[in-house]
């Protein structure tokens, strides 16, 4: 194992143990633990968005919508489990996600053999298949759920809840990823700004649907605009940290592979990347789906922090938060995203709320945009710029020395 890897993993373990000890010995009260969990969740969303915007150059404002989808999906699954030990939501969601995932992979394989498939037609095909499979999954899931509920009930209470929670978060991520795949198929063909606007539209549509989840959607337990209660508070520092660490490593390894170089090349110059034989549409889709997967996972974790979900949390105004975080941290910097999301959560939620005297809390959002403006005016490349931890830094072959301008001039002279 390389030294940087050892340092990184050792450092991560050290941070985990120290914070866990501080929580166990009661040095950090619930308020700060909450901020810590929130910061980890923001960091996961931020990493996903950085993959899409920072590394792939696609301006997405839809991450908050996928975050909302993940939060409500995972919350709904554990809600039913804690309510009456019924795994029907779990089974339906699991089967739907697995069937649709398998169908998408299979169809993609088949469609990749046909050249020049129209994106909208492919979208229609996928949509029909997915709707059909979801219908089957509902029937099958309901049939299977008593058996699975019985099996899970055999386990001790705490363990079964942890298992259901873990599965729920994974399902939330996969669901967000699959929806983003479907949505991205036609929309990723749009130009950069238009893609941003279309994804902003997705965030708004999701929020409107959640506002009316009890009337327009068949989910009375989500209680629409009144907010969903009764979700178990399972997310703790262990889960948040574990998910964050795994995702950091996944993003790092992805970016250091040939896939990552292809993703970055699409950002740098689409035409040049195409000329190098890189399938641009494929890599745009890949980074969008992965980023949305992370957003869904983060949503699943978020749902279990407070056990309360409200559609206003997923307002489109908030969808700028991850964008602000990654720009503050530096586009295309993993370390920057991590640092900025923790700093952001602590400053906005923690310090400004604690430092500002009683009665001036309303000044919080007056001070915050001013800080934002100052950062943008003074450091437009983000607070961290392009600084990376050694483990996360990409080792690239040295650039060939560029031709000196003097030489070219000398050549031109005669």
């Amino acid at each position: 194992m390389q030294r940087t890897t050892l340092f990184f993993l050792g450092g991560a373990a050290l941070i985990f143990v120290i914070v866990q000890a501080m929580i166990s010995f009661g040095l950090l009260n619930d308020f700060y633990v909450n901020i810590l969990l929130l910061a980890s969740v923001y960091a996961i969303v931020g990493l996903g968005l950085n993959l899409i915007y920072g590394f792939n150059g696609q301006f997405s404002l839809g991450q908050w919508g996928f975050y909302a989808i993940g939060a409500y999906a995972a919350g709904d699954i554990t809600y039913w489990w804690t309510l009456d030990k019924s795994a029907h939501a779990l089974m339906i969601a699991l089967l739907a996600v697995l069937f649709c995932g398998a169908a998408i992979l299979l169809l993609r394989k088949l469609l990749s053999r046909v050249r020049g498939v129209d994106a909208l037609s492919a979208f229609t095909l996928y949509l029909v298949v997915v709707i059909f499979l979801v219908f089957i999954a509902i029937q099958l899931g309901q049939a299977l759920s008593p058996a699975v509920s019985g099996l899970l009930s055999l386990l001790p209470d705490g363990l079964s809840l942890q298992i259901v929670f873990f599965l729920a978060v994974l399902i939330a991520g996969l669901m967000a990823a699959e929806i983003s795949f479907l949505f991205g198929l036609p929309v990723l063909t749009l130009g950069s700004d238009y893609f941003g606007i279309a994804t902003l539209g997705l965030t708004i549509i999701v929020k409107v649907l959640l506002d009316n989840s009890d009337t327009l959607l068949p989910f009375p337990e989500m209680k629409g605009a009144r907010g969903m209660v009764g979700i178990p508070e399972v997310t703790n520092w262990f889960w948040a940290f574990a998910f964050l660490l795994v995702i950091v490593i996944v993003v790092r390894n992805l970016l250091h592979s040939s896939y990552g170089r292809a993703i970055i090349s699409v950002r740098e110059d689409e035409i040049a990347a195409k000329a190098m034989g890189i399938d641009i549409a494929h890599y745009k889709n890949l980074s969008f789906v992965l980023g949305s997967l992370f957003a869904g996972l983060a949503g699943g974790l978020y749902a279990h922090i407070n056990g309360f979900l409200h559609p206003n949390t997923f307002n489109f105004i908030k969808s700028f938060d991850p964008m602000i975080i990654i720009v503050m941290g530096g586009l295309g910097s993993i370390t920057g995203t991590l640092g900025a999301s923790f700093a952001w959560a602590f400053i906005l939620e923690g310090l400004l709320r604690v430092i500002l005297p009683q009665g001036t809390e309303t000044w919080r959002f007056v001070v915050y945009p001013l800080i934002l403006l100052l950062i943008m005016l003074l450091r437009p490349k983000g607070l961290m710029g392009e600084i990376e931890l050694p483990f996360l830094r990409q080792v690239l072959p040295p650039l060939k020395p560029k031709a000196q301008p003097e030489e070219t001039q000398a050549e031109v002279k005669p």
Partner: protein
Amino acid sequence: MTPNGTPNSKDTLFIQSLRKGWLGKVFLILIGLAALWKLGVSLADNPVLFLQQVINGLQLGFVYALIALGYTMVYGIVRLINFAHGDVFMVGAFVGFYTIARFQFHTWPERLFPGLPQWLVLGVGTVTVVLISMAICALLAFTIERVAYKPLRNAPRISALITAIGVSFFLEYFGALQFVFTPNFVTFERPFSVQNWQINNLGIQALPSGQSPADNSIIISNIALIIVLASILLLLLLQFIVQGTRVGKAMRAVAYDKQTARLMGINVDGIISITFAIGAALAGAAGILYATAFPQVYFVMGIIPGLKAFVAAVLGGIGSIPGAVVGALIMGQAEVLSAAYISTPMRDAVAFSILVIVLLVRPTGIFGEPEREKA
């Protein structure tokens, strides 16, 4: 399957339909037909109600058009989605509120020259209030542009966008402070009283306030008339400025090519500031018109109309002035008709679905020109 993707006789119909996009077109046509069917049924069911909704949509659409012009002009020139524009609209509405309710400014002709006829007093007074609001908004946008956007002219576009979001937050929450605009909902006092007319098979009659209209009659209020007329007036004025004056010519030149415009001796920074100011003036007027129609002002009132107007600008083809107007009218109709016939809370979702569908069919919007490659 042939290497270069040309149709091959061996391809099945299914493969061909995928390749030529028939499947997607069928999908879109089905959606369109469902919408048309729904509208047709509603029209046949109760034509009077339908017409009433169309009139309401027109009123809303013209307000959106005034806001959308600010977005589209700014985007056309500096390629910036000016998220603070909706909040300028909010400031315009609040300026109108203060000049009317606190300072009674709409009655200044009467106080200066007692004995003038009432309609003249209200007419001149209201126009003055609108002009004050437009001037203050223009000044505000000018300041924002100089302080926040100009230093970032050469920075990455995302920095300017984040700055715009920051300015938007600042205007909202600074306005929410107790001593600025207050965080409460405030009732906007109309400078004139509402007068309704009902139109039915008996002709047009004035409807005294408090009296319920006769069956099968369309109601038109003086507010709707004023909004439509004022908007059309302002749009014509804008058209004149952009097409008929030296400043407008310079604006078009800067939008076309900034570098060359600078070489031709045009003060590019000045023109950009003027564009921001004109857009904001229109938003200020829209703020007062909107508050007159829906008499309630509060510090985040600009977000949703701002966003809708922005969507309208995209729908019509961002950067195109007639496009913004057409897009805004479509948005107004879509919002009102979907609220009436589908479901009230779904109107935002319907509006955005229309946006996504239009972008898929015509990625540059209805009137948009394909993006030019710039060196």
